[in-house]
C-alpha cells in the first residue's frame, strides 16, 4: 500500500467565530464542534479548553489523545468503522495537523488517572506536553452505565478529531512523506534478497471495560491474529478504548504515530526488509492467549520472517502474552526484541514483570512506572483534581495542600509507553 502523508504544522490554537486553520494557527469555534458531542444523551455537558506547551496547566483525568487527520485521496475515511465507514484505508493521500492533539478529559469511573502537565517536571515525562492541545472536557449524566459512557466519550473524541482534521483537507502541507508497504510478492524481490526479513508484532489491549482496542471498529477481543498495513494504522484503523494505566496505555495518538512502524519504515529497503505488521490481542481467557500467540507465530512463519519487534500494552496479564509470543517466535528461529515497561516497586527492587523466560534475552524498557515523583503545583487545572488521590499511582494525601502531587509515574499519560515512543529507559 502507498500513502502520501502531508503534514501541516500547527503552531497555536485559539478560539474564534469560525473553524479553520490559517497560517498554522487552528481557530476553533466550539459550538458547531460540540453539537454532535452533546447529541449523545449520556453526555451532560462538554466544553473546550486550550493548553499550550509551557503553560502552567494540568490536564486531568485524561481519557484519550487523538491527532486530527483527514483522507484527501484514496478509499475510506479516518477512523474507519468508528467515525467513517468500514472501507479500507491506507492508500492515497492523508493530511495531518501535526504538533497538536485533541485530548478528551473527564471521569468515566471513580478512580482515575491520566495527567498531562504542560510544564514542570511532569512535562518531561509525557510527549503530550509538547503539543498544542485542544481539550474536550466532558461530564456524564447521573446514573450512567460505564460501558456506554466510555463508548460515548470515545466517539466524541474521535468525531472531534476527525472534524478538525477536515479543516486540513484543502491545505498545502509543510512537509510530505510517502510511506509504502510491500505486498508479500514484492517483499521477495531480488533487490532485498540480502536484507533480513523483519516483522512487527503489535499486541493490542483487549480485556474489557477501559481495557479495549478497536480495529476498523472491531473489538480486538474477538479477533484472530492478523496482518495490517503500516499505512492503515496511520489512517486511524486502530483506536484506543483503553484507559488503564495512564503510563502504558496506547492512546489513539500513539497508534496513529506508531514509533516502531516509523522506525522500521525509515530503514526499509536499506538495513531491513520490513515485511509487515501482525496485530494480536491480550485476552484474559487462556486458550485465547494460546490460540492468538500460536497464530502470530504461524503468520510470522508464513511471512518467512527472520526477526521481529514485539510491543505490548498493559500490565500483568499481557506479560503472559508477551512471553508467549516471544518464545514461540524464538523457537521457530525468529529473533525477537520485545518492548515493555516495568513495575519494579517504588524502591526499584521488585521483580519487574509478571512473567519471564530466558529466551526473552533482548528487551527494551520504557522504565519503572512505580518511580515516585513530585509534580509541582500548577496555575490552572483543566478537568478536575478530585480523583488524583484515588488514582493508580496516587494515594491518600497524594494531592498536597499546596496543589503539588506526589505520585508514581504511573499517573502520567504515556510516561512508560511500551511502543518505544519515549527516550526513557531503566537499568
Amino acid at each position, binding site marked *: 500500500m502507498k500513502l502520501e502523508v502531508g503534514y501541516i504544522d500547527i503552531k497555536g490554537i485559539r478560539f474564534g467565530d469560525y473553524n479553520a486553520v490559517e497560517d498554522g494557527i487552528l481557530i476553533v469555534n466550539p459550538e458547531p464542534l460540540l453539537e454532535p458531542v452533546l447529541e449523545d444523551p449520556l453526555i451532560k455537558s462538554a466544553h473546550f479548553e486550550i493548553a499550550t506547551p509551557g503553560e502552567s496547566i494540568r490536564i486531568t483525568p485524561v481519557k484519550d489523545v487523538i491527532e486530527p487527520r483527514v483522507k484527501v485521496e484514496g478509499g475510506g475515511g479516518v477512523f474507519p468503522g468508528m467515525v467513517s465507514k468500514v472501507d479500507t484505508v491506507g492508500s492515497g493521500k492523508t493530511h495531518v495537523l501535526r504538533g497538536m492533539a485533541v485530548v478528551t478529559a473527564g471521569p468515566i469511573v471513580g478512580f482515575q488517572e491520566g495527567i498531562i502537565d504542560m510544564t514542570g517536571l511532569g512535562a*518531561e515525562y509525557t510527549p503530550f506536553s509538547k503539543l498544542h492541545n485542544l481539550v474536550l472536557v466532558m461530564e456524564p449524566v447521573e446514573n450512567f452505565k460505564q460501558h456506554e459512557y466510555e463508548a460515548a466519550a470515545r466517539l466524541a473524541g474521535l468525531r472531534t478529531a476527525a472534524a478538525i482534521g477536515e479543516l486540513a483537507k484543502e491545505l498545502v502541507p509543510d512537509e510530505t512523506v510517502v510511506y509504502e508497504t510491500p505486498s508479500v510478492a514484492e517483499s521477495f524481490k531480488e533487490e532485498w534478497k540480502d536484507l*533480513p526479513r*523483519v516483522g512487527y508484532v503489535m499486541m493490542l489491549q483487549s480485556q474489557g471495560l477501559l481495557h479495549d482496542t478497536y480495529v476498523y471498529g472491531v473489538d480486538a477481543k474477538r479477533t484472530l491474529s492478523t496482518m495490517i498495513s503500516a499505512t492503515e494504522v496511520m489512517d486511524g484503523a486502530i483506536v484506543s478504548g483503553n484507559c488503564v494505566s495512564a503510563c502504558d496505555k496506547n492512546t489513539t495518538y500513539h497508534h496513529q504515530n506508531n*514509533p*516502531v512502524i*516509523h*522506525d*522500521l519504515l525509515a*530503514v526499509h529497503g536499506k*538495513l*531491513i526488509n520490513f515485511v509487515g505488521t501482525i496485530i494480536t490481542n491480550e485476552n484474559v481467557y487462556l486458550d485465547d492467549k494460546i490460540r492468538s500467540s500460536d497464530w502470530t507465530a504461524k503468520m510470522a512463519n508464513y511471512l518467512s520472517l*527472520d*526477526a521481529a*519487534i514485539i510491543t505490548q500494552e498493559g500490565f500483568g496479564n499481557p506479560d503472559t502474552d508477551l512471553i508467549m509470543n516471544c518464545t514461540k517466535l524464538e523457537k521457530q528461529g525468529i*529473533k*525477537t*526484541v520485545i*518492548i*515493555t515497561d*516495568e513495575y*519494579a516497586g517504588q*524502591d*526499584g*527492587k521488585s*521483580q*519487574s*514483570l509478571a512473567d*519471564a*523466560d*530466558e529466551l*526473552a*534475552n*533482548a*528487551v*527494551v*524498557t*520504557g*522504565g*519503572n512506572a512505580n*518511580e515516585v515523583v513530585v509534580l509541582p503545583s500548577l496555575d490552572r487545572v483543566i478537568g478536575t483534581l478530585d480523583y488524583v488521590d484515588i488514582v493508580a499511582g496516587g494515594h491518600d494525601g497524594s494531592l498536597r495542600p499546596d496543589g503539588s502531587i506526589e505520585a508514581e*509515574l504511573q499517573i502520567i499519560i504515556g510516561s512508560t*509507553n511500551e*511502543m*518505544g*515512543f*519515549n*527516550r*526513557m*529507559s*531503566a*537499568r
Partner: protein
Amino acid sequence: MSKFKVVHYINQFFGQVGGEEMAHIPAEKRMGPAGPGLAFSKQFGDEAEIVATIVCGDSWFNENLELATKTVLDMVKEESPDLFIAGPAFNAGRYGVACGTICDAVKKELGIPVLTGMYIENPGADMFRTEVLIVSTANSAAGMRKAVPVMAKLALKLVKGERIGASVEEGYIPDGVRRNFFDKKRGSTRALEMLLKKIAGKPFETEYPMPTFDRVPPMPAIVDMTKANIAIVTSGGIVPKGNPDRIESSSASKYGSYNIEGVDDLTGETYETAHGGHDPVYANEDADRVIPVDVLRQYEKEGKIGKLHDWYYSTVGNGTAVASAKKYAAEIAEKLHNYDVDAVVLTST
C-alpha cells in the same frame, strides 16, 4: 569549605609492598593517599582528600576474614571519614572479595557511603553487587586510567547525597535496583538497533535481564520401588548429636556424610538439628521428623523399597548461597552414582 575526608583501602600490590609473595601481610595504615589514591586525589580536587590509606595483603584478609574485617574497621573508625573507597580490584578475585567485604562492613558499621570497583566477572562482584555500589572496570590494571575518574565522580555524588542515576549512566554494576533515566534515543529506535545486532550475531545488551529460574527437568519415575536403592539428602541440617563437623546454622560452608547402617530410628540422644532458621525443639526431639529414617527402614524391612542407602547427606539450607548448594549437590550426586542409588528423598524445612 572543608574537604570530605576519605579513607582508601588497597592491597599489597597497589600499596607497592610486593606481589603475590607479599599477600600475607596484615593490614597497615598509612597517612595520606598511596598508589591509585594519588590519581583519586587529583580527581577529587578540593572537594575531598584521602586522609589515610589502608594497605592489606589479599591472602591475609581472605584467610582471616573476621579478624581482618575488625582490624580494618577499627583503622577506618579512627579517621572518622565521610567516605570510604576500596580498590579498584579489576579481576583479582581475593582483592575483589576483600574490597566488597570491607565496604559492606564499613557501610553497615559506620553508616558512611562506600564505593569500590572491579571487573564484572570478579567473584566479589556477584557477592556484593546488591550490598555495595561497584563501579564496572576493565579486567586488568590497564583500566586504571578509565576507572578512577568514574569512581571519583560517583564517590563525590554519594558523599554529597546526590541522586544516583541508572547503572549505565553512572558506570556501576547493576545492583538489583531499577532506576529510570532518559536515553539518547527513543525506545523503538533502541529496539531496532538491538534487533540488528542480534540478527547479525553481534553482542548486544538487553535493557532488562530476565530473572533466571533454574529449571531442572525431573527424571523418569521409578518403575519398581521394591528393588530401588533409596538415599536421604537433606538441607534440614540433621547431624549426629554434637554436630561433629560443625555445620553452620546459617550460610553453611559444608555438608556432612553420615553413616546410618544399622540405625532404625533417630532419637533425641543420638541426633540433633544444626538448622538455625526455625525453632529446633521438635527436630531435636525426633530427627525422623526431618529425615524419615524410621519409616524408610521399616519399608526396607517390609520389602516396600529395595534398600535404604547406608549414608545420608546433610547440610543447612538457611541462608546458604545458591552457588554453594550447587557445589554440594554436585559432589553428593557423584557419591550417589558411585553407590548405585536409584532415587533420593530430599527434605528441607
